[in-house]
């Protein structure tokens, strides 16, 4: 009998980081389906293209850092990042745009900081913010939901989509591009919200966006049920955004969009359930997560309403990523047997 000395605990829950990542990827499926249904094959093609790139970049970086390749590749984190980037980009984003975004996410925002678990910012959002600022034309040209064309459901053929993404963008693009509802609402000129709703084709088809948001929310609820993340961040995020939107909507319904609009268009749901809940770059304690969520919700509303960009999920999340360590210091939970929680950085050596 050759026994070894091992300290407790001796049993382990059969969970793994790879499993968590896989589950999160699966939870994006309803969103992927909805996107494909309303915006065509572009989303799917982008996901495959981005994933292939992400795995390649990840492998190269791990190799360059002399780390065990398969051990790190198996954690699925690169693929999850790629999927989130592909979902955030416009469906007909040209191939090079996706490539740049994935490169920035995997190489710069993740591996240069030390790989998985070490990145202070959400890699997908770093990439998104970078391409949004660098290539505003490509990034703001979304397609209108395909329900607009022809009779009934009629999306662009797969091969056409392929050539659109990997071929020459400029020739065909204009035929399919359209503003997003957030763009419309932002650049409605002197119209009141009511008039904008009546006047705009894009806004008339806002239902597609609602459906996509609902799909993301479904996936998010699945993850909540599986306890992949706690309810604190998404709840605080959505409630604060909804709350502030309601407040301004009550004050002036003509000037400000209604809360339902804010919650169900743009990247709100994707951000609330898949980006803000990224544990690596968010706050730690439950209380901290609530503040983190509230911060994101408020920033989104502020930037959408008074800022220069129609949507603000990426910027808001990045800004709050920056604040997360600070939040952590002041939101230590009250430990068992202590009267009050400890605060600040007293332990600084």
């Amino acid at each position, binding site marked *: *009998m050759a*026994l*070894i*000395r*091992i*300290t*407790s*605990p*001796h*049993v*382990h*829950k059969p*969970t*793994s*980081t790879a*499993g*968590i990542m896989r589950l999160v990827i699966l939870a994006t499926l309803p969103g992927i389906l909805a996107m494909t249904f309303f915006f065509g094959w572009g989303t799917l093609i982008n996901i495959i293209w981005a994933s292939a790139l992400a795995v390649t970049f990840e492998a190269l970086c791990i190799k360059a850092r002399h780390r065990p390749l398969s*051990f790190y590749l198996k*954690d699925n*984190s690169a693929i999850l990042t790629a999927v989130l980037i592909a979902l955030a980009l416009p469906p007909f984003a040209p191939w090079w745009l996706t490539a740049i975004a994935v490169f920035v996410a995997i190489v710069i925002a993740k591996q240069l900081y030390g*790989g*998985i*678990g*070490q990145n202070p910012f959400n890699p997908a959002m770093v990439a998104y913010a970078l391409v949004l600022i660098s290539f505003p034309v490509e990034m703001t040209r979304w397609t209108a939901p395909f329900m607009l064309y022809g009779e009934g459901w009629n999306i662009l053929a797969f091969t056409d989509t392929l050539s659109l993404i990997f071929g020459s963008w400029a020739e065909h693009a204009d035929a399919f591009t359209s503003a997003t509802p957030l763009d419309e609402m932002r650049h409605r000129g002197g119209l009141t919200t009511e008039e904008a709703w009546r006047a705009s084709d894009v806004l008339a088809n806002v239902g597609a966006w609602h459906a996509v948001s609902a799909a993301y929310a479904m996936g998010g609820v699945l993850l909540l049920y599986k*306890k*992949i*993340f*706690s309810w604190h961040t998404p709840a605080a995020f959505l409630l604060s955004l909804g709350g502030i939107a309601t407040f301004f909507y009550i004050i002036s319904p003509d000037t400000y969009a209604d809360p339902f609009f804010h919650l169900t268009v743009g990247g709100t749901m994707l951000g609330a359930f898949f980006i803000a809940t990224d*544990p*690596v770059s*968010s706050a*730690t*304690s*439950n209380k901290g997560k609530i503040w983190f969520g509230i911060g994101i919700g408020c920033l989104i509303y502020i930037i959408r309403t008074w800022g220069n960009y129609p949507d603000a999920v990426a910027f808001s999340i990045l800004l709050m990523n920056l604040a997360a360590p600070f939040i*952590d210091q002041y939101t*230590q*939970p*009250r*430990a*068992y*047997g*202590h*009267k009050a929680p*400890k605060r600040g*950085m*007293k*332990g*600084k*050596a």
Partner: protein
Amino acid sequence: MSKIFAFHGGIHPPENKKQSTRAPIRLAPIPEQLTIPIQQHIGAPAKPCVQVGEQVLKGQMIAEAQGRISVSIHASSSGTITDISPQAVPHPSGLEAPCIRIKTDGQDQWAPHQGLADYRSLPQLELIDYIRNHGIAGMGGAGFPTDVKLHLGDDHIVNTLIINAAECEPYITADDMLIRERAEQIVGGIEIINYLLNPTHILIGIEDNKAHAIRVLEDALRHTELNIDIVVVPTKYPSGGEKQLVRLLTGVEVPSGRIPADVGIVCQNIGTVAAINQAVFHGTPLISRIVTVTGGAAGKPQNLEALIGTPISDLLETAQVNHKTLSRLVMGGPMMGFTIEDDAIPIIKTSNCIIAAVKEEMPPAPPSQACIRCGLCEQACPAELLPQQLFWFSKSREFEKAKHHNLFDCIECGACSYVCPSNIPLVQYYRFAKNEIRAEEAEQRKSDQARQRFEARQARLEQAVLDKEIRRKERAEQAAKTQAAKKASNETAAKTPEDNIKQLKTAAAITRTKLKKALSALEVAKADSSDNIAQLDLQYKQADHAAEEAQKALELAQSGPQVPTTSAAPDIKQLKTQAAVARTKLKKAQQALKIAEDKGHDGADTLRATVVQLEEKSAAAQLAFASAETSTASSGSPLLALKESTDKALGTLKKAEAALETAIANNSPAAEKMKAGVVKLKAKYTEALAAQKSAELNTQTTSAPKATEVPAQNVEQQPTARTPADLKALKQNVSIMRTKLKKAETLFASAEADSEQAGELQQEIVRLTQLHKDAKAQLDAEEAGKIKAAAAQGIDLKKLKIDAALARAAVTKLERSIKKAQEAESAELNALQNELLAAQQQATQFNNTLSQFE
């Protein structure tokens, strides 16, 4: 049913309890050899009270408690003591500890023992002591001496008694089976504890996965008069942790770093309660316990009642453990138990479970991945800590931060490690950090103590030095007093400073020695990099300072008495000597010259020049001496001295002139040089004369106010009174000379043809020119002296002269204006007359002042 207060976190690992509850509790066979550690509890180890080779009976005390926190140890079976030596004991460290080994005789013969017929008749303290002597210690985990917990009444008010039957760790069913089979023992035990603590509530906490046990317990409780609540808590690890159970049952939290008794709560393990019952009612000490032997490798997982000291190997055999599939042997539960490598290790009072695990149920931990801060650990932590933060801090050795994040509230339950998706051995990190901090603190305490000891010693030494100093001062004072007395009697003033100097010398020497000592001590300290460098440095500096002071004092004392003698005297003396030397030299030279001239030597000319030079020097020396004497001799008559020197200078000058004349007459080539010498001598003489005059003036001015009082002084003032006349005479002299010179020049011009006469005349002219120059020089010197004297009184003579002239002019002008005014009968006449008067007054004043100097 009481209310349940949930605690944060917790996990639900697979229970694996059913396997071992199928069979009833069996008695484990008596082993051949019992190994009984003398410390199976927290606190001081018991002290063996048997000898090797001694025969012992079952239940006989073999080691007795010593100290407040300790319990006794008893022989688990009858036999012979074979050994009292360190053996492998159940401990996570795997270290050996002293054990008493008994070779059993198989008789299992009891020592005489008898329970208490009525424990209530016994005073509480005696009953507590009885429990202590029967070796009862906590059987749940830590093994805290039970009597201590029952003896809290003095400083704590206990209102709640909690019986811990939660048994939350997977696999373990020892308490479960105990309740099922021996519930009446538990009730009896609770009654005894109730008698000792008299709590207001009694709660039994039990997890809802022990339905059978709960039923049995409820039945048993019907037979007691006590109001005991069975609180069924949801199955969740670690609800059996003392703090967690307290929270679950009462909603109260045990403050960090305190014990439940501080909030009026006492917890007892249910197995301990049964052991108390057995001890009190039957007199049987704690010599056996129920152990769950289970795990994948156990053929017949079951609970065994094993004697304390039974080797684990015997139990494994009874449970038919398959050694081929056995991969890990764990004592305790899978969450907090520890592995054992040696199956000869004995069962002790706290051993509740042996898990003989196969590889599948306890696989080796996979390599840990990076922490993704998923927060699952935080959701699982029953102490409400931030495990991932603690992990980062422990990993980066930021122990201060870890402490700030309440590392020491971690109960090492392992829940965080259990849920970690990245398989990070979190608890191991925390244990590492805790040990590091503890080691650091111990080190700190040690160094603090060392420092205190050192400081105390240092203070002692310093005090000794001070005392010595005080004594020395006293002695010195005493000595000074006697010295003073001696001095007074002797009245030898000269001796004192010498003595003083001696003393100072000694003092300086002493301080120097001290300084050296301090320096060497400092160097040694520096070399050793000792702690007290700063102190030594200070000492050294002080010594240095003292040495300097002493040296200074000494020097001052030495130089002091000499100062007055060296002040002015040597100067004049020196000058006098110099003057004398110069005179002697001059005389010698003159003699030599005379001889040379007499003999018609060639070198006479050079000698003559030397003589002139020497004369010069002698005169200068004399002059210097004279002036020095006048300036220093305050009581003497400076004027006389000055006059003397002037006369002397005049004499020298005349001699030199005579010599020059002879030289010219002889057509000597040295004539030119001699001429220059004469001129110089003249200048010297003039200087001397001027000095004399100014001195005269000074005496006059200073003595002037006194003149009326002391008539004698008037006699002395005579020379000064002569001054204006002198000046006039000089002026006249100058003009006479000028006239003579002019006459001679005219004669010379007219007598050019006659060469003989011309030569004479030329000589005459030279002489007259010289005389004129002299007279002029004399006059100038005189005037300069006047101006100087006037300046000494704050009056500028030149300015005074000008002012006087202006005043006179103004008077004349006014006189003319008045004349005109009188002629014109002007009205301004009066005013003009007034002005005239004023102008006249002013002019007179100026003239008066001026006349003082002329």
